[in-house]
């Protein structure tokens, strides 16, 4: 039995006009995202994977096609609805963490918590990412991996139904990267949300329920992983 669909993209495309050149970043694409799955989108740079992520995260609008989240159309939503969508439904993890330098780890998490009605307790989330003892440190006092874990905590505190991660290990070393992946893997295992990871690192595909491969702005193939492996067992 297939799990219910959380998000679906129907004939979505995105064209950027850069000066006099039209760049077709995403060709007509159709994709369903299931509730509770861990989806990895793989592809080299320029393959359209980031564009896809931006569209799903509601920070960009498609040039054509429709996007539905939990059955409701996102494409016709206004500025205010889009803000609310990002606020309530989506958690974002960036490649370069993008923490607020003037806030401590706990405060960075609290900043996101203040946006929603029923956030998780800040300390609980920090504990989950293993950083409770560093809660009062500023980003400049944390390592890259620690910063990324704070960023994940910041995303998780809102209890989003969709967690979008853009190259979450891209700036991290091997060991640290695997620790971060473990966190994302655990979220899926606990069934606390849908996780989408965008990366060029093919090895990461092994931990996913499904892998979407992108090439030149369109989906090349989708494979279902019958036996996802925990991050400890992958290598790159």
């Amino acid at each position, binding site marked *: 039995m297939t799990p219910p669909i959380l998000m679906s993209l129907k004939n979505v495309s995105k064209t950027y006009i850069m000066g006099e050149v039209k760049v077709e970043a995403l060709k007509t694409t159709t994709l369903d995202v299931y509730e509770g799955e861990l989806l990895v989108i793989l592809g080299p740079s320029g393959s359209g994977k980031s564009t896809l992520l931006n569209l799903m995260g509601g*920070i960009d609008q498609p040039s054509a096609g429709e996007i539905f989240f939990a059955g409701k159309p996102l494409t016709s939503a206004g500025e205010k609805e889009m803000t609310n969508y990002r606020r309530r439904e989506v958690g974002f993890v960036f490649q370069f963490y993008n923490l607020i330098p*003037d806030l401590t780890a706990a405060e960075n998490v609290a900043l996101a918590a203040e946006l929603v009605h029923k956030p998780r307790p800040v300390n609980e989330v920090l504990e989950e990412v293993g950083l409770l003892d560093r809660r009062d440190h500023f980003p400049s006092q944390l390592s890259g991996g620690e910063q990324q874990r704070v960023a994940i905590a910041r995303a998780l505190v809102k209890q989003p139904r969709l967690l979008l991660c853009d190259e979450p290990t891209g700036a991290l070393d091997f060991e640290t990267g695997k620790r971060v992946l473990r966190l994302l893997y655990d979220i899926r295992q606990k069934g606390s949300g849908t996780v989408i990871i965008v990366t060029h690192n093919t090895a990461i595909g092994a931990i996913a329920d499904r892998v979407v491969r992108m090439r030149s702005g369109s989906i090349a193939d989708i494979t279902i992983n019958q036996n996802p492996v925990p991050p400890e067992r992958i290598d790159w």
Partner: protein
Amino acid sequence: MTTLTRKLLRTITSGWGQFVALVLIVMLGVMIYISMNTAYSNLSQSQERFYQEYRFADYTFTVVKAPESVISRIEAVPGVIKATGRVQKDIPIVKAEDERATGRLTGYPLPQEGEVNRLHLLSGSWFEESPAGNIGVLVDPQFFVANHLTAGDSLEVIAGGKKVVLTVIGTAVSPEFVYPMPDAAALVPEPERFGIIMIPQIQAQQILGYPGQINQVVVDLAPGADETAVVREIERILEPYGNLASYPRRDQLSHAALQAELDGLKTMSGSLPLVFFLIAAAIQFVIINRLIKTQRLPIGVMKALGYSSFQIIGNYTGYALLVSGVGAVLGIITGIGMAAGMSQVYAQFFNLPSTIGGINLSVVIRSVVISLVVGGAAGLFASRSVVRIRPAEAMRPEPPASGKHTLLENWTWLWQHLDSSWKMSLRSILRNRVRFAITVLGVVFFVCLLIFALFSNDAVDYLVQQSFTLSNRYDYIVRFTQPVKYEDITYWNRWSEVQKIEPLLEVPVKIKAGDRAEDELLVGAQVTGELRKVYDMHGQQKQIPEEGILLNKSTADKLGIKPGDEVEVHTTLGIGPTRTERLRIVGLNQPMSGSGSFISWETANRLLGESRVVSAVMLKLDRPEMKEVEKRLYEMTSVSSVMSPQREQAAFLQYMDTIIVFIAIMVLMAGLLGLAIVYNTSLMTFQERQRELASLRVLGFSRREIAGLLRKETGVQAVLGIIIGLPAGKAMGNVLMASISTDLYSMPAVIYPRTYFIAALLALVFIGIGQQLAIRKTGQIDMVEALKNRD
């Protein structure tokens, strides 16, 4: 054009608003500098030239009556170059409907060549040698205009107890009537009711009954002459003729008023523009500093390519120089325009025949040099950090800005109650201390300027309140041509309109203490009187003493005496013999204007050896301004003038209308400054945190919430600036008022609570606009940018 120059121009066009805001500040500085300095130099040159060419007296002596021959004796005194003797007397002018004005009839010996206080003909014709018919007179231009006169009109005056008809043949001015005021007690000229009547000496002597005699000597002293010695010698010569008063040029009313304006202008033209330049420099410093931080990578690349630090510094300094250059050009254009406007305003106030207009090249050049030097220095200073940038390091991404705990966090209660966005804003502010300080200082100065602009209105209002409402509670003050018995007047009480009548006896005296002497007007009023109350400049009520003198503080200071001391008082009324009495100083008074020295009516009478005599009476009517009463008063030949505070107040307020323009210009300039400062700071904050804000947008912050973050940050600095700026403005007002206070006027820096409120409100409005202009940019936040790789 080199590529580096092109890069500079691109930097400017990409941050267009910021460049414009900076140019604006420099422009305002140059504009103020040029307009004030030009106005100052024009006015002071006109003054100097007029004084020089028309031989403005160094000293003036007044006597009861002296033969003309005394002049040659005075001219024989070593140190005296020239002395002119003349008759001068204030006489009633009978206008239409029997209304009165006062004319200061002044005789001029003909021919005028070489005389002291010579006349300059402005319009009409010169005195005829042997006039047929009426006597031709010249009047001052303000009186001429205010009374709608044309050449050939006749002017009826009362002189020597009879009506005389004069013919106005034109207008003229002399250095002593640049600012024609009847006396120090008048707040402003009232040209409808006071004018200078200039007449050939012989005719003046005829109609005033001074054949071959004079009552005034004006003296031109040799440069470097021992003034005190010369004056003592002249006073000795004049002693037998009843030497009433003598005063130097600096105490001459018209001169003092003009000089006070010049002094104020000089103070302002020196300091005010400088502050604008410094603020512009400080903000440029911060902007260029930031520019270099954000352009670390391109700087690193340029260095790697082989550009020297010096070339790159030159490039960034070029930004500052360009700001200064463009600002200077615009400032010159507007400054010259404004200088012309100011000169026009001065021409209305002061009768200066040759107001030197036009452009003062040295002022223009100086303004350019100052703005370029200050701007260049800021640029060099800010871009010196370029030297420390190493190419390899610059090309690596920068570590995250280091967040720090701040002292504020020790205040746990407060800190715990702040939400994350407040914490973020406060820490960010405290991280950028220099910018924080510069912004706060900028806002402080901006608020100071606002207060400064607004408070002149309060000062005027206070003055009006004090003198027209609190002090003078009568409806009319009626002066007599000579002292009369009070009992001869009291029948006015029976007039149905008269509610109350009170006597006044004004006694001009010379007060001697040790070897020092000062002329003073003692106002004798009833101790229990209700129509004339005494309030000092601080609004404190003073009691008129039964015995002794409540003395003007500045006179007391000049005499070096204090309450409790006894002084010798000599009457100088000009009628009857001089009388001397010793009186005790019982108190000091600091009036805002006028004599401010009071004695009881009884003491005044005793001083003159009289009893129950008045020189004037005050009337309180059922309703103010009753034409009927006025008409009755004017019919009496013994009445020399009828003054109404209401009318005086109206004239004063009308006169002060020009202040409104001044206030508006100042508020506008201050506002533009505040707006530019806040715009720049907000924009910088925004630009620096663009990536941060983009990620917040992705996290789900709405545009309004992002704008709120920025508002908090600049808002804290703005509010702090306002809080410090309000008392700082008051302090600035105090300094300014102290610097322009003269013997004639002294004014407290009165600032009503309302003004603080308005200033704060205006400040918030301008700050809000500046912020809003910058915050508009938050609409341009590109969320995708947050996900992109860092440079």
